[in-house]
């Protein structure tokens, strides 16, 4: 077990190295300059330009730039090219918002996905199953920005519910509970929109896994010995079908974080996605590289966690 974790961590380090390499070169090799004042601005003297290039190591050859970037990344000295603030500070102020949004979305995906998949498998071939299947494709095919706008349009304009930002502004909350409830309320809608695709994929996976399990002999045995249908369903079948749900956690993260670029922009939710979009607009290379790196780390940790959970849930799996 321990050797498995160590080996996986070792592999993750290699992968992270590869990822930092890919993202650094993709971002640096694309044409265009990162100058905050624009390439051709005549008001900027050559000395200022040279100082900027020196400061961000743009005067070095590429492989040295990459080495400096890695060094700065790990020592936390990487600075934004726009406002010269440390990248880590900028990201860490955004991290809680994105994390809470994504954790909420994962919870929604897993719970509703399980529910939809479970009933789909139960009513397999039935019209109920067809409706559920159709619903899951509907969820995948919905463009996130479109459904968010429709929600904003109907809820804000016609119902008058404030849903933008992380919390209500200009209101004194009587206590912490009210404050947290307000934050949770603001989290709901973006999290639901973000989780739609996740709900769909999870329900498809669970449905096929559940259908497989329901054909196993031990289910027949359990039914034959007269156990209540709900016991057979939840204790025998569902438990053994949870495998895809667990592997799904690791795979969900990159999808969710991609989605949060758009969702955070629409719902004015100050998370990492919004920061990334701004960095793209401003060509802020250090932030882009760091964001990719952080997301990749989260994904790798998620994968490791899901493998461990997998072995814990399914004793047939041996981690070696």
């Amino acid at each position, binding site marked *: 077990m321990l050797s498995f974790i160590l080996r996986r961590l070792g592999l993750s380090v290699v992968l992270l190295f590869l990822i930092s390499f*890919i993202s650094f070169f993709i971002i640096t090799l*694309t044409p265009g300059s990162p100058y905050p004042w624009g390439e051709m601005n005549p008001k900027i003297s050559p000395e200022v330009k040279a100082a900027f290039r020196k400061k961000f190591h743009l005067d070095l050859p590429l492989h040295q730039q990459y080495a400096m970037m890695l060094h700065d990344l790990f020592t936390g000295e990487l600075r934004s090219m726009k406002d010269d603030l440390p990248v880590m500070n900028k990201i860490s102020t955004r991290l809680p918002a994105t994390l809470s949004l994504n954790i909420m979305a994962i919870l929604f995906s897993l719970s509703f996905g399980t529910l939809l998949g479970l009933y789909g498998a139960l009513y397999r071939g039935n019209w109920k199953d067809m409706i559920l299947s159709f619903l899951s494709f509907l969820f995948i*095919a919905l463009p996130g920005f*479109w*459904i968010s706008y429709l929600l904003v349009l109907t809820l804000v304009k016609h119902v008058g519910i404030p849903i933008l930002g992380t919390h209500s502004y200009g209101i004194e909350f009587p206590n912490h509970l009210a404050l947290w409830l307000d934050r949770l309320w603001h989290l709901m809608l973006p999290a639901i929109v973000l989780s739609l695709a996740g709900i769909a994929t999870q329900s498809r996976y669970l449905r096929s896994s559940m259908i497989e399990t329901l054909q196993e002999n031990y289910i027949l045995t359990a039914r034959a010995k007269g156990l209540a249908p709900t016991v057979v369903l939840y204790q025998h079948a569902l438990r053994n079908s949870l495998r895809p749900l667990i592997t799904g956690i690791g795979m969900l993260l990159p999808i969710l*974080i991609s989605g949060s670029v758009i969702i955070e922009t629409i719902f004015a939710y100050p998370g990492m996605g919004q920061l*990334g*979009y701004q960095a793209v607009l401003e060509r802020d290379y250090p932030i882009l590289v760091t964001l990719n790196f952080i*997301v*990749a780390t989260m994904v790798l940790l998620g994968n490791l966690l899901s493998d461990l959970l997998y072995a814990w849930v399914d004793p047939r799996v041996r981690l070696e």
Partner: protein
Amino acid sequence: MSSFSGLQPSSSNIQPDYQQRVGSHPFCKNKIALLALSVILFLTLVAAATLLLSWLGLPWPMNPNATDLSQKLLPPSPLHWLGTDHLGRDVFSRMLHGAPISLTVGFTAVIVSLSIGVVIGSIAGFCGGKVDQFLMRLVDAFLCFPTFFLILTVVALLGPSLMNIVLVIGLVSWTGTARLVRGEFLTLRETPYVQAAFTLGQNSSTIIFRHILPNAAAVILITAVLGIPEVILAEAGLSFLGFGVQPPQATWGNIIADGKAYLLEAWWLILFPGFAIFVTALSFYLVGDSLREAGEK
């Protein structure tokens, strides 16, 4: 139900149940999938007709780029079926002219990603060993990236154009295909007929192209169909963020992007183009999934 066909009364004993067999293919039984397929065919026809008409100099129903500020932000009416945008352009015409773009991006980007994925997957699955290890680690690394964010970054840095969008989406989204094709190769390599081909001393290219790839074709086709809606949605998302195909060329995504400033007064700028994206993506997903299911039966 071909298994019961022998028991069913048939009008002619000599004629094989050819018609029955065509109609009874699992795909054809799925009414929703057939409906989705006809939606796709209809869209393709509309897109082709729009292209042809505008090429002939008869943009139908109106010129998608003709502006008329006296007619701006009009709600849907008999004259402007889906209303007009902030420059007085006819939204219905713009949507028709956006259809070829969405479909082109969908098809071509999938061709790019499929080619890369099939080549890399084949190499990994056929060679095995160190090569396989390295290529699969590369796939793992790509799977850790938030794909859409990576696409957005590169397209934004390169400058958005139809060509760049197609290439970048294709270059980023080949990993799934590569994994799948590798898996198929690993399975098919062990089948008796491929082993026989090895024993007979056939060269690698014959084995790959004549014995293995044709048998993996179904799986590849299904991934392709399921890949198209993902590309269409990604392109729409890019357009929405301002990095899709650039105005004045109309696309479904940039009608919404232009319309988002008028969200509260002109709902038709958001509703209709988004619905078109949604229905197109949904149709491809449904067709792809029922193909997959038909293959499993």
